[in-house]
């Protein structure tokens, strides 16, 4: 019995056969996924396959309805938990399109969130020092701390801001939704440096959603999953990334087609 518990605990996230519906359309079908502590998983797939949907469903966006299956975090079912509860428990989602909130400064927002996550007050001085250090790592201008959250930020600045929040919040599982999209080479390098820092010093697990591989170049990857048309059709190790880079997703699309024809 003890052995089983131990195994459950190692499994940070378990996704057991979930289907996800948005409005009246089922986007994800019967998804299974297990992420252990500190592991890095990559989720690849063509546009429209449902990658972001999985990210939203795991974070608890109320518009994404999990109609079937269970999501377990630390062995506890979290299907009914709100996004705030999941965040406090240690799940983080880096948004593909971070939202702008006029009148709310980046620093007071992060401080508020950090206090919620850690469950205690944090001294302003300590907070500022910590924030400054992480902003330096991400090569962000310190003046951004006092600017309104994401308002007037460029695409790259928004993504850096997401990674900054991840570093400050220290989640156990971070889901990065297309964090590398729309960034120039330098920005991708800076962002992956932040992600690497998270991997190494926080022992954080990652689910990296991407359809390119630029962000993965400097990162260690444990598992790769291929999502096509709402199904995970293949799971492999890091070498799968190179294979997809070379051959694309066509093979998997065909595979899915065959399976549906044989009455899957």
């Amino acid at each position, binding site marked *: 019995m003890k052995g089983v518990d131990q195994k459950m605990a190692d499994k940070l996230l378990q996704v057991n056969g979930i289907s996800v519906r948005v409005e009246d359309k089922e986007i994800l079908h019967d998804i299974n996924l297990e992420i252990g502590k500190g592991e890095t998983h990559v989720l690849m797939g063509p546009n429209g396959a449902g990658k972001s949907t999985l990210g939203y469903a795991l974070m*608890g966006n*109320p518009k994404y309805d999990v109609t079937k299956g269970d999501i377990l975090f630390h062995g506890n079912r979290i299907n009914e938990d709100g996004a705030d509860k999941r*965040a406090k428990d240690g799940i983080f989602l880096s948004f593909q399109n971070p939202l702008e*909130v*006029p009148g*709310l400064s980046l620093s007071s*927002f992060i401080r508020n969130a950090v206090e*919620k996550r850690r469950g205690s007050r944090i001294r302003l001085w300590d907070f500022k020092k910590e924030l400054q250090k992480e902003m330096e790592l991400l090569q962000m201008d310190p003046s951004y701390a006092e600017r309104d959250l994401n308002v007037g930020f460029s695409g790259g600045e928004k993504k850096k801001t997401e990674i900054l929040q991840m570093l400050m*919040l220290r989640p156990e599982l971070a889901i990065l939704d297309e964090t590398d999209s729309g960034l120039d080479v330098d920005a991708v390098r800076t962002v992956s440096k932040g992600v690497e820092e998270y991997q190494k010093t926080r022992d954080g697990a990652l689910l990296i959603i991407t359809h390119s591989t630029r962000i993965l170049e400097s990162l260690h990857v444990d598992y790769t999953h291929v999502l096509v048309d709402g199904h995970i059709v293949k799971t492999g190790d890091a070498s799968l990334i190179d294979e997809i880079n070379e051959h694309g997703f066509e093979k998997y699309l065909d595979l899915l087609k065959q399976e549906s024809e044989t009455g899957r």
Partner: protein
Amino acid sequence: MKEKTYVDDVDRSIYDIRNEEKDVYRVQEGLDASIVEKISKEKNDPAWMTLFRLQSLQIYNELKVPDWGPSIDGLDMSHIATYVRPNTKMSAKWSEVPEDIKDTFEKLGIPQAERKSLAGVGAQYDSELVYHNVREEVAAQGVVYTDMESALKGEYADMVRKYFMKLVRPSDHKFAALHGAVWSGGSFVYVPPGVSVEIPLQSYFRLNAPGAGQFEHTLIIVDEGADLHFIEGCSAPKYNVANLHAGCVELFVKKNARLRYSTIENWSKNMYNLNTKRAMVEEGGVMEWVSGSFGSHVSYLYPMTILKGDHSRMEFTGITFAGKGQNLDTGAKVVHIGKDTSSFIGTRSISKDGGVSTFRSSVQVEKSAKNTKSAVSCQSLMLDDKSRSDTIPAMDIRTADADIGHEAKIGRISDEAVFYLMSRGLSEEDARAMIVSGFADNVSKELPLEYAVEMNNLIQLEMKGSIG
């Protein structure tokens, strides 16, 4: 998770503190010449004021109630005792203020606010000033800050007579006439030429007795080249009887002078707030309004600025928050008369839980006002499907070279933004409150810190609710 947030009606308990009535004197509830004479006699008015009151009463009886704004049918003047006096005399020391009155003020944070570098406190309890204190250094600069009753009889009596209700005349509208007849209390400020008052002067008004109207009069004269920031904060306890507030504010900004007039009004939700505020700006003068309208059942509030002198300017920054059962009709007016004058009106309005918020603006450019610049911007945020927000801009331009702009935006809190903040660990309630506070930052960043904090607390209170 999937359940919607129910945002509760406001817990106003902090603001709705009521003391037992201990009023020594209270006139009967209707309004006729004998009452007005009684008030005048009781206040020991100079003869011209008694006459002024009676003339105003006559105008009041002739004028009709406005028929264009939110309904004020719930207001029955024959049942409003118009004049109530607390049983205390003017006091310059905090220790001499009666315990129950002090207690209420303390809960409203006045002594703390005073400690924090505010120049003077004139707190009005019912219709009389009970506590008044002007910091010595301000008085030493020659600045006069006193209650209207004293001003009427003291050294500045002639000045008061010269300016009193010359900008807002009793004939303007029914409630201005009412004010002229029964006004009581309020502040008089005179800043001599060239004097710059470094710290803001503040006055705190509140209503206490049930069924009592409040008709305080504020008269501020900022003389040539002088500079003043005046802050008025209002809060009232809650009662079942309809309450009326028909105050009047007259501001005179002389040549090259500057006046910033900030108000946070937080009336209880049975209040009819029919306030009239007006400023006259001479050559090169600057008038800045910062205005937060919270509470009240119905509000009519459109501070008006007359840019009389060449190169005079005005800026109006406002926020209105209409919750359940509230119909707040607010905005601003400006009249350009001088050459090269400019005005900017920027407002935000929030409506929630069936609240109605209407923004009304009026920009009038006279033929003489060559090279006028004016911009009006109004943003509205509706927090649910039951609430309502309207924008009614009016413009009357009589020159060919005016540069006039207007923009209006109406929006809702996006679910995605709420989810975004929640995904960082904030509750739905906190997420919404943060978005709304951020929306109101046009006003909060213009206020001194302690007022900005109070306004933020007010918004948090208005947003409070429970998930489930």
